[in-house]
């Protein structure tokens, strides 16, 4: 664990710093994707990297997600550590064969001989008024494929530490950042640190209810916890940080302690992360629960464009508070 720091930077700067530090540390790390070099991506997360590392290590690709993801897989198998940039999480669908059929399975299919130390950086999250093909949160698709690891940083601190772990991993890792969090600020040490996968973080301790949130839904859970405090309900907020692997023990222990659980994730409600975590809690803490595990995900509709409609589809603190109230009698 690094020293506490007063330094405050944005989520975007934390990602940039993690990449720069890893590229300085290890010559085999390189970035490939659309508009990653001089443009630094449309979100400017990679600004400055091409100036330091050159176009040999920050490769602007054609708009060919399947092709350059496959090139990343092949490079990873032969001694490099590529960071493939998929501009929008929605475009993961285009590269899915290379990730799900190739990267995920090569180590197993080769009997453990070949390794694919590949990182795919992409994003999730609605609310940018970007409509149905630029707003989805598809992280659960990847979590369903054995062989992949999926990280969902929720703070600048976690963004730097998880990305550095991802780059040093010998397995393919998909890291999803919420587009809406890129300008969020937080304390980030300048020094080198990593965050192990499969270790949840208790973002706030509480005793009456557990709110499990992922990615930007951690902030939603924290805001809900503040509001619940006004109702004399003490909420514990837990961030799994990686959903594959999933730190089941921390989630179950908290459920046993508080006896009530709400799971909040921006993926679709049906067959999603919330369903998986709810089943983990049900199996691990059933006899300690005072109420059924509740889930809040994105509404099961293509994300609409109109702000009035889009805002109805994304979980928010008020929804969490209302759901929490139903779990306590007399509120």
């Amino acid at each position, binding site marked *: 664990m690094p020293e506490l720091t007063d330094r405050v930077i944005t989520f975007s700067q934390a990602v940039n710093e993690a990449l720069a530090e890893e590229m300085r540390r290890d010559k*085999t790390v*390189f970035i490939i994707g659309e508009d990653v070099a001089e443009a630094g991506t449309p979100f400017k997360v990679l600004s400055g990297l091409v100036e330091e590392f050159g176009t*040999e*290590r920050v*490769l602007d*690709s*054609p708009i*060919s997600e*399947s*092709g*350059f*993801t*496959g*090139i*990343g*897989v*092949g*490079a*990873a*198998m*032969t*001694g*490099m550590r*590529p960071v493939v940039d998929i501009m929008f999480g929605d475009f993961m669908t285009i590269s899915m*064969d*290379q990730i799900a*059929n*190739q990267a995920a399975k*090569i*180590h*197993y*299919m*080769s*009997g*453990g*001989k*070949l*390794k694919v*130390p590949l990182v795919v950086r992409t994003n999730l999250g609605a609310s940018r008024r970007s409509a149905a093909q630029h707003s989805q949160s598809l992280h659960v698709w990847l979590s369903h494929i*054995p*062989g992949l*690891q999926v990280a969902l940083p929720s703070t600048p601190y976690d963004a730097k530490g998880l990305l550095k772990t991802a780059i040093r991993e*010998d*397995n393919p890792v998909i890291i999803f950042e919420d587009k809406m969090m890129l300008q969020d600020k937080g304390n980030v040490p300048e020094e080198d640190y990593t965050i192990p996968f499969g270790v949840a973080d208790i973002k706030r301790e509480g005793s009456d209810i557990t709110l499990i949130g992922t990615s930007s839904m951690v902030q939603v859970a924290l805001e809900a916890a503040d509001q619940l405090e006004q109702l004399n309900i003490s909420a514990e907020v837990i961030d799994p940080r990686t959903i594959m692997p999933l730190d089941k023990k921390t989630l179950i222990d908290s459920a046993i302690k508080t006896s009530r659980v709400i799971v909040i994730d921006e993926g679709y409600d049906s067959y999603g992360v919330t369903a998986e975590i709810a089943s983990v809690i049900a199996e691990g803490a059933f006899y300690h629960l005072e109420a059924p595990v509740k889930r809040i995900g994105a509404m099961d509709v293509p994300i609409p464009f109109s702000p009035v409609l889009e805002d109805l589809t994304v979980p928010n603190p008020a929804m969490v508070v209302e759901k929490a109230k139903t779990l306590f009698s007399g509120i």
Partner: protein
Amino acid sequence: MDNKDKNSVQQKPEEPIRPDKEHSRHIYRQMLTIRKFEENVNQLYTSAKMPGLSHLSIGQEAVAVGVCEALRSDDYITSTHRGHGHCLAKGAKTNLMFAELLGKASGYCRGKGGSMHIADQDSGNLGANAIVGGSAGIATGAALSAKMRGTDQVAVCFFGDGALGQGIIYEVMNMASLWNLPVIYVCENNLYTEYTHYTETTAGDITARAKAFHIHAEEIAGQDIRQVYSTSVELVERARSGKGPSFLLCNTYRYFGHHVGDINRAYYRSKEEENEWKTNRDPLIIFAKWMTNNEITDESGIDLIESEVQSEIEDSVKFALDAPYPDPEEVNKHVYA
């Protein structure tokens, strides 16, 4: 030029590089090893000793051997569902191949990959691939990696005419050309995209597709190993010396069906056509004849190679049949490194 002419074995105007005596015998042995390996695969399948199914490349041996003989052992290949020939030609051992096909623990992939997923990093084989066109990115990425690491390794991507329908082939050819990568795209046109003649699925001119990306392209008779080998030597040299990617279209033929269970093929091709290729364009017959005509070896020399290969294959089949299956606890090992 009609299709038949395009697929006939014709002498190129210039005399191709002539493999020396020892190399010629090695080349013949490699082709014969693939032939006999796969004949035994078919036998194991039809006698219900092999699980699943298998795609035989019998008839296409000259492409696999001709290309791989032009490569170094640290060069890379990626292969296809019809990949036994590529794997053997790149240096895989027949006993460990058979063991893998039978799902045995001593197989190349500990029995977890099977016929369509043979991988052997020791011989530069990045894996056969059961997604048609699925390895094009991997081969191109290996070439990018070689360039970035500053080695002079070359990557070969084997694929069939069926993969010409997959978009990723063109995506990665575009990048290989843009970035001048040491990769060779070897298209084995065996005329049939599974059960459909390639002319029903493939518009225009195949090599023109590569040329559109300014990729150097050649079309050759894939049944003539000397043409395949000499052209491959040139293309490998191009790639190794920094002259960039190339595309090699090899016109060839598979004698068996799409897979071992594809027995009744009359609805998509005739017996006459099959017999024509087997009789007049067989890569082993053509090369054996060339060797005897040029006094590289005689009938008895060829018989000797035959008996040595036969004996190796028999030992390898026995090794694989006797080999133990994986322990049950293997099932969830190697999901993660």
